[in-house]
């Protein structure tokens, strides 16, 4: 029997040598005259174990990680190519992958196939429950689909948390010859990679989700805007679209339903602000990514002035489960008004970094200390930024905050796209606050004054504080400026930059009290 070996082709795995490991394995197999089947999958999301090699032994997938190309010879002599021998005693052996606590404790409603199947095998996708959501959607009226999504309590996973059902209903109820489904895959937040992992590891799920949205609102065209920093995701998604089209799952007659829906990939060009939905629409129309004033809402006048559903990758990816298993099954997970699951991304200085999909309600401390294992450097955790560059820094004192939209808002933070970036005690929070302003200045689209000018003035003022110049006056100036930006900016870039700044100031005031330094003093 041919031994089946699984190696991820997720960009994060490739970045740490997965392609080299696969190459070494192929070479070893050819040298030994053995035929092995190497399946390139997405990532399981246990990034500290990448490259994670899995081998099927008696029908169970056993993991080995972190596998360096140099480890291949040892694994081969332990019986890797035969799928047995003394493999399970190898120092890199992790046992059955499904039993690894990090994975076993998750609730993978969305990422269940990621890392398990060949991302471009439609057969594998179907065998693992794929296209059941679309099948159900085709048996419903458009209003019925919208209703199901509304009842599930699903909220936009891009960050704003707007109820998806209401958005879809608005587009459904708006008349228009042409309507669009736009997927926001401009995942620019540092500390987030769930969209990328999904596009690379289970692209048909996103295709299915967008197709369901198209049927629900009567849109025949879908566009996915992927950032240029994600070449692997772009390639995987384009390949998946071609396969789905060939299989009749996209095109003029989706799954023989006589309903049309097709998809197109568009590539960004390195502007963070294009993750803001109206700037994204401008970019899709070939212009500078300048934020549009709302109203009109994109649901009424979106892409090319047509009614448009614009959602994040993870929002669309949740739809197939909602349709296949029913709104109630989905809504049974979660807490308060945050229903279902969230793929939380543990990143930065963390021991067990990766993707952790779980129902809303898990405490921040549990995520960082228990699941994440604290810092990678082994030093104490000092600050955790949740929700990307526009999210607040949380101190240990707030680790009892549950992962829930409202709970984070109540503590002047946001869950955003689910990124959790951990910093150890060497972090200088004044520097982080300065960076928040600096990043806003670099990425500001320039349309509104608080963001365009405020970000630069903010960075300058923090510089003065860091130099020990009149800290009291300058701190109150920063606070005042943050208020102006928060309430006077047109979009979340300028409006949310105060979150990291003010949280750093409020929770870590000691970092902003400096004795005056000579200008020429070195860092």
């Amino acid at each position, binding site marked *: 029997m041919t031994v089946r070996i699984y190696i991820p082709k997720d960009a994060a795995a490739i970045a*740490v040598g997965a392609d080299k490991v696969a190459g070494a394995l192929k070479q070893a197999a050819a040298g030994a005259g053995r035929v092995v089947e190497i399946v390139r999958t997405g990532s399981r999301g246990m990034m500290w174990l990448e490259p994670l090699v899995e081998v099927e032994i008696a029908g169970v997938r056993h993991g080995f990680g972190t596998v360096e190309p140099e480890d291949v010879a040892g694994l081969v002599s332990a019986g890797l190519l035969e799928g047995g021998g003394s493999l399970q005693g190898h120092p890199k052996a992790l046992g059955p992958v499904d039993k690894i606590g990090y994975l076993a404790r998750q609730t993978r409603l969305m990422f269940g196939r990621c890392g398990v199947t060949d991302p471009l095998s439609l057969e594998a996708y179907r065998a693992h429950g794929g296209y059941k959501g679309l099948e159900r959607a085709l048996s419903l009226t458009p209003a019925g689909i919208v209703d199901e999504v509304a009842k599930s309590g699903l909220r936009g996973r891009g960050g704003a948390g707007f109820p998806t059902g209401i958005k879809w209903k608005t587009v459904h109820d708006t008349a228009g010859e042409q309507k669009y489904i736009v997927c926001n895959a401009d995942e620019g937040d540092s500390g987030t990679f769930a969209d990328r992992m999904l596009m690379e590891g289970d692209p048909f799920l996103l295709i299915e989700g967008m197709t369901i949205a198209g049927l629900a609102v009567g849109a025949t065209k879908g566009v996915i805007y992927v950032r240029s*920093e994600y070449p692997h995701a772009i390639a995987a998604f384009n390949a998946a679209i071609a396969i789905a089209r060939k299989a009749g799952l996209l095109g003029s007659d989706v799954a023989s339903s006589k309903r049309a829906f097709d998809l197109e990939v568009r590539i960004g060009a390195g502007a963070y602000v294009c993750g803001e939905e109206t700037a994204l629409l401008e970019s899709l129309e070939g212009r500078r990514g300048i934020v549009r004033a709302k109203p009109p809402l994109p649901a009424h006048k979106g892409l090319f002035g047509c009614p448009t559903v614009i959602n994040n990758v993870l929002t669309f990816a949740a739809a197939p489960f909602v349709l296949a298993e029913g709104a109630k099954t989905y809504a049974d997970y979660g807490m308060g008004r945050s229903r279902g699951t969230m793929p939380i991304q543990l990143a930065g200085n963390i021991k067990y970094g990766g993707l952790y999909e779980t129902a809303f309600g898990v405490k921040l401390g549990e995520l960082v200390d228990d699941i994440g294992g604290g810092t990678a450097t082994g030093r104490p955790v000092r600050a955790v930024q949740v929700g990307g560059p526009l999210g607040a820094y949380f101190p240990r004192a707030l680790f009892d905050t549950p992962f829930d939209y409202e709970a984070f808002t109540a503590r002047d933070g946001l869950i955003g796209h689910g990124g959790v970036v951990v910093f150890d005690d060497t972090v200088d929070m004044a520097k*982080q606050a300065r960076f928040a302003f600096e990043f806003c200045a670099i990425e500001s689209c320039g349309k509104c004054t608080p963001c365009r000018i405020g970000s630069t003035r903010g960075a300058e003022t923090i510089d003065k504080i860091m130099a020990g110049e009149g800290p009291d006056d300058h701190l109150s100036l920063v606070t005042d400026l943050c208020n102006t930006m928060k309430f006077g900016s047109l979009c979340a870039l300028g409006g949310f930059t105060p979150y990291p700044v003010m949280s750093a100031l409020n929770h870590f005031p000691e970092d902003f009290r400096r004795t005056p330094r000579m200008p020429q003093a070195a860092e």
Partner: protein
Amino acid sequence: MTAAADTTAREIAAEHGNRADALIEILHQVQAALGHVPEAAVRTLADALNLSRAEVHGVVTFYHDFRDKPAGRHVLKICRAEACQAMGGEALVARAEDRLGVACGGTSADGRVTLEPIYCLGLCATGPSAMLDGEVVGRLTAPKLDALLKGAGA
């Protein structure tokens, strides 16, 4: 160069049916073909897509991906966003600047390497991260960075 840029830009625009909404894709392709987006291409594209030169120039300068001058033979992008900062990414940027003798954003004097910042490659649990000529690199360390620079001839 100017004539070649004009022809290339015109051909690429025609491939996209001279659609103005395809401008960003067109610019990506022009840059892939010419290494940068020269002024001549801006003029040609404005003409082909029925836009003003200001509009095309505006798009070229708005997006970080597009450059108006050729890059070095190799382009090294190092992530400067928070998750990589938490793992010591800034020290690696400083090291690369020191080795290449340029500030981030510049090209080494010998024209071999352009060093650029990038804000997130989505490899945030295996940081610090970098990208050399389109190839992603994770768990970057000082020795690994030195090897990358050496490989790029710097």
